[in-house]
């Protein structure tokens, strides 16, 4: 994985912030507020926001690579979600608040309803599996009004939270909205931005996080194999372990390539096919790499104390979020089948 300047910066920051203690506390439901402030001070949550709206003005593909680094460190913060919220809000021309944010809805088939009321708006509906919903200072919501996708900014308090978690005990909450919003808290989404686009952005983000987590696994597992001695030599000298690490290495490399392809596609107007590829390929690699990393680590990797599980549990969760491999494969496969056999190759090369 070649590293850009922004990635190097993020790696230094996250490396300093994230400890086993922080991760364990986060699993207990304690929001890492101090770490969040440091990340916010570095400006990272606004990485997808254009310069004129208070962001860096960085190319989107490059900005998104921050999430690969976050994934590698299992950063227990709503960085991806706040970036996505900022992108939604900036696209709609809405002001972007400070503080952690999230986006909704994220689950297929869910929709929120906006209605005009008293010169302002009223938002209602239910959104499940909202990442860090309980910790968000505000949530950027996508809702349709009279056929037009609208973006609304809803501050905490504008929704009721029922807590839930994923396998890594990251918050994945159910939010029930029933809120009056001021007229200027709602605006039409940027052109082309709708529920499918938000889902695609989420898929691209999780792909990058997964690619980072797998790079972390490769690093941890290889180091462990060089350290741990059994039968009189480091286990990394056994051909079977070498092969396991080689396979892990190959799949994480593919995941990294696919995820970067997805990030580029976000920058090119959210081209959906490379994002599908990214989520399919990283999702498939996730389980495989997690399994191999555990196999190399043996019993120690199965303990809470050892940090391996912070990465493997995230991988086992993230691959299901914003559409699993089957969902995206079905979309991609149907597209290719409709194009037909004689266009298969040209579809793949132009996707």
């Amino acid at each position, binding site marked *: 994985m070649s590293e850009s300047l922004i990635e190097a910066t993020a790696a230094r920051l996250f490396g300093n912030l994230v400890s086993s203690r922080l991760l364990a506390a986060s699993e207990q439901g304690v929001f890492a507020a101090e770490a969040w402030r440091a990340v916010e001070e570095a400006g990272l949550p606004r990485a997808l926001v254009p310069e004129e709206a208070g962001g860096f003005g960085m190319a989107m593909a490059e900005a998104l690579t921050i999430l690969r680094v976050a994934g590698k460190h299992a950063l227990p913060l709503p960085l991806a979600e706040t970036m996505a919220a900022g992108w939604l809000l900036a696209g709609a021309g809405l002001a972007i608040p400070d503080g952690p944010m999230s986006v909704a809805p994220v689950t297929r088939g869910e929709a929120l309803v906006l209605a005009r009321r008293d010169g302002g708006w009223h938002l209602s509906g239910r959104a499940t599996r909202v990442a860090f919903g309980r910790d968000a200072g505000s949530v950027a919501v996508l809702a349709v009004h009279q056929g037009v996708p609208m973006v609304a900014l809803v501050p905490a308090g504008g929704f009721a939270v029922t807590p839930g*978690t994923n396998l890594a005990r990251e918050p*994945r909450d159910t939010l029930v909205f029933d809120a009056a919003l001021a007229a200027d808290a709602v605006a039409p989404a940027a052109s082309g931005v709708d529920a499918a686009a938000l889902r695609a952005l989420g898929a691209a983000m999780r792909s990058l996080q997964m690619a980072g987590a797998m790079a972390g696994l490769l690093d941890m597992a290889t180091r462990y194999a060089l350290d741990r001695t059994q039968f009189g030599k480091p286990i990394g000298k056994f051909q079977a372990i070498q092969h396991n690490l080689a396979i892990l290495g190959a799949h994480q490399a593919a995941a990294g390539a696919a995820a970067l392809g997805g990030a580029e596609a976000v920058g090119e107007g959210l081209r959906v096919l490379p994002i599908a590829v990214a989520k399919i390929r990283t999702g498939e690699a996730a389980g495989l790499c997690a399994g191999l990393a555990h196999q190399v680590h043996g019993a120690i990797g199965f303990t809470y104390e050892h940090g391996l599980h912070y990465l493997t549990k995230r991988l086992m969760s993230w691959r*299901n979020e914003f559409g699993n491999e089957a969902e995206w494969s079905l979309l991609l496969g149907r597209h290719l089948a409709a194009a037909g056999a004689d266009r298969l190759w040209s579809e793949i090369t132009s996707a």
Partner: protein
Amino acid sequence: MVDLPFAPPPSCPEAEDLRLEVRAFLSEALADRTPAQRAESWQGHDPAFSRKVGAKGWIGMTWPKEYGGHERSALERYVVLEEMLAAGAPVSHHWIADRQSGPLLLRVGTEEQRQEILPKIARGEAMFCIGMSEPDSGSDLSAARTRAEPVQGGFVVNGTKLWTSGAHQADYMILFCRTGKGQRHEGTSQFLVDLQTTQGISIRPVRALTGEHHFNEVVFTDAFVPEGSLLGKLGDGWNQVTSELAYERSGPERFLSSFLVMTEMLRVIGPEPSERAAIAIGRFSAHIHTLRRMSRSVAGMLQAGENPGLQAALVKELGNTLEQEIPEIARLLVDCEPSLESDDAFAATLSLISLHAPSFSLRGGTREIMRGMIARGLGLR
């Protein structure tokens, strides 16, 4: 002719009557158990349940009656085991003792040890744990460093055992440690350690990645064990432990750990599944059907007094692969964001089993160790 012999399983018609009896018992005894609790499989702990199983005569089934056993066949015992696993019964209070510690006592224990312990096990009242692994001795058991030094009237034990499942709940540990001067396999012995009465043992939880407490670190600090606790012959520990491991690996728990994911998936998918789901269900069931046959063949070997070490390794190799594959396929057949706290039965079952799955090919011997044993069976080592 290089081959890996697998005899057809002996037929055992009486086992099928027993099967119905076990099912009737379990449907009542487990009525209140949630799918997520059932998914704990043989790690579920419930001493009251184990006592009930003992009262039914389903622990120590193949042992002589004089030691509280029931002198039934290994095939009948096999039926009880697989029914317990398929139903998700909380068997951990008696499982290890029934599977390996009891048989070990029968083989190498003194008459006194047998008389004292075996009936308690058979009643479901004596839980065992296995003190084999150590911090620097996982797959490489011969690197064990815990040592028992002979003293007046017994031995003094020092050292640390790790990954000891259930030590915090168990009554006894079968301790494997060094007692002599030899290197590696030599100079090792086994002891029957009473965890309730022995001084100098501290048990610290080693939490699993789920936060669950199954494993422990067990530290022996000048712990005195009496002479009578030596199990088998002094210095014969390696041979004893090797045949104990064949027992440890011989059961259906090596391929049924994910069975409840299939059950719950079938419930979600319903009676008219998609082609894709039906094919997956059919394929998994064909694998389980075949592994059951192979596993009954292993039971037949136990019944005949043969060593099923190689055959058990083959079943475990295939079974672990299947157990790990089932949740990976299931999650793609039923769209689901897994969560341990989900009140959806499928999601909760899938979550727990997905998190445990990486350990299936570690516990009871890693995949590398199993494949090495099979290679030895092929004459390659």
